[in-house]
């Protein structure tokens, strides 16, 4: 497991719709809280002119938690919104992905979540592309 792999699945779990994750992981395996789900805020920064010095744009609600599986593996979650079950499931998958169950979870949970996300993004991008302007120039009087 590389850091990048873990970043990828933690990001995917955080962006997933809570209902989609719940449908893919209905039963919660045993675990112990290291930090039970807590709702808070993260201050989001933008950059002046899109690329310059940072400034504070506004906050976003976030739920975080940490847990430990019975085997001792630790999982963390920071997910947008105030859904404690979402954070709980994300932390469980984060922990399980560090165990022997990783391949199974990848196929059963992460791959479907990635597919849902890719499809939703493509559908939106497709709608946006349909509103792209095709300019054409009319023949001007002096050219005729």
């Amino acid at each position, binding site marked *: 497991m590389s850091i990048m792999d873990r970043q990828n699945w933690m*990001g995917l779990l955080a962006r997933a719709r809570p209902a989609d994750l719940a449908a893919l992981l209905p039963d919660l395996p045993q675990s112990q809280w290291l930090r039970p789900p807590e709702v808070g805020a993260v201050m989001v920064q933008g950059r002046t002119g*899109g*690329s310059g010095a940072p*400034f*504070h*744009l*506004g*906050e976003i609600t976030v739920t975080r938690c940490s847990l430990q599986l019975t085997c001792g593996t630790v999982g963390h979650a*920071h997910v947008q919104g105030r859904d404690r079950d979402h954070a709980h499931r994300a932390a469980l998958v984060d922990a399980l992905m560090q165990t022997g169950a990783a391949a199974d979870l990848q196929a059963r949970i992460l791959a479907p979540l990635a597919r849902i996300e890719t499809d939703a993004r493509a559908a939106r991008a497709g709608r946006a*592309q349909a509103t792209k302007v095709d300019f054409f120039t009319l023949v001007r009087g002096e050219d005729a």
Partner: protein
Amino acid sequence: MYVAVKGGERAIDNAHAWLAEDRRGDTTVAELSVPQIREQLALAVNRVMAEGSLYDPDLAALAIKQARGDLIEAVFLIRAYRTTLPRFGTSIPVDTARMRVDRRISATFKDLPGGQILGPTFDYTHRLLDFKLAAEGAPLAPTPQAAPDMAPVPHVTALLDRDELIEATPDTGEAPPDLTRQPLELPANRALRLQALARADEGFILSLAYSTQRGYGRTHAFVGELRIGAVAVELEIPELGFAITIGEMTLTECETVNQFKGSRTEPPQFTRGYGLVLGQCERKSIAMSLVDRALRWKELGEDFTGAPAQDEEFVLSHADNVQATGFLEHIKLPHYVDFQAELELVRRLRAEALAQTQPSPRAAAE
């Protein structure tokens, strides 16, 4: 002497009960759900998130329902709620160049990489009431789709920047101040001004921006680019030692290209105004970029013409609608003692004035 008066408890309770009944309205009409508000009054939700300065569509929708559609009251509710939240940290600055755009237009270049993408806009609608919407359950025709293009769309100003035709906006690495942590101090740097403008009242910023267009601090703005879309929010997690994406948010970004300046040492160059707002808030982001540019007069060596939009103290002290409404509306609350004092004073002054203009009866008799 300070006199405390109690009372009105029953009247207040009954007023709140009536408020709840009026909020519900006619019970023969179906009750509005929070998800309905979130999905179908999305631009009101976006405005409450932007001015409440908290990105959470469900909470903003709830606030709108509770406030009976009074958006400033809803913003107030969101601001009050956010003070109860622990701050987990500060994100890595969002990268708007990697935004997945729903909409991206430029008023300065017709043909540009990525093209003009209109998105779900009111522009070019006829602004005629659509009575079909008054009929419920009318099926929607499917939205046309084209082959998606997932490549990031470059910023228009980056194209000008390449040829040094526009001022650079270097990352100075300076830690930005935070209005939610320290009270506003003037003079403010640009980062503090942008934070204040991003959460400012849309109507106030709109009027100020309009005033610059009409000549009060004119800056000759073109909309170089306006884009709306989703960006990833990334946070460093100390216990992990690396950053992860914690979610996504929709932002509206406007970059204006403004009147150029030059000097003996520097050739003429366009200048920039910047607007970035939580959610889909197009009017606000355009207005913000105009006001941002007007406030930069000193840094760009321009004259202060006395225009309100150039006056940092005026703009920043009056832009927050929660502050403004708090101070404005407090004058309707009981001021009985203050007023009693004023009343006494006016009576005494009048008595003295009358005594001087009308000679006493004894004086007349003498």
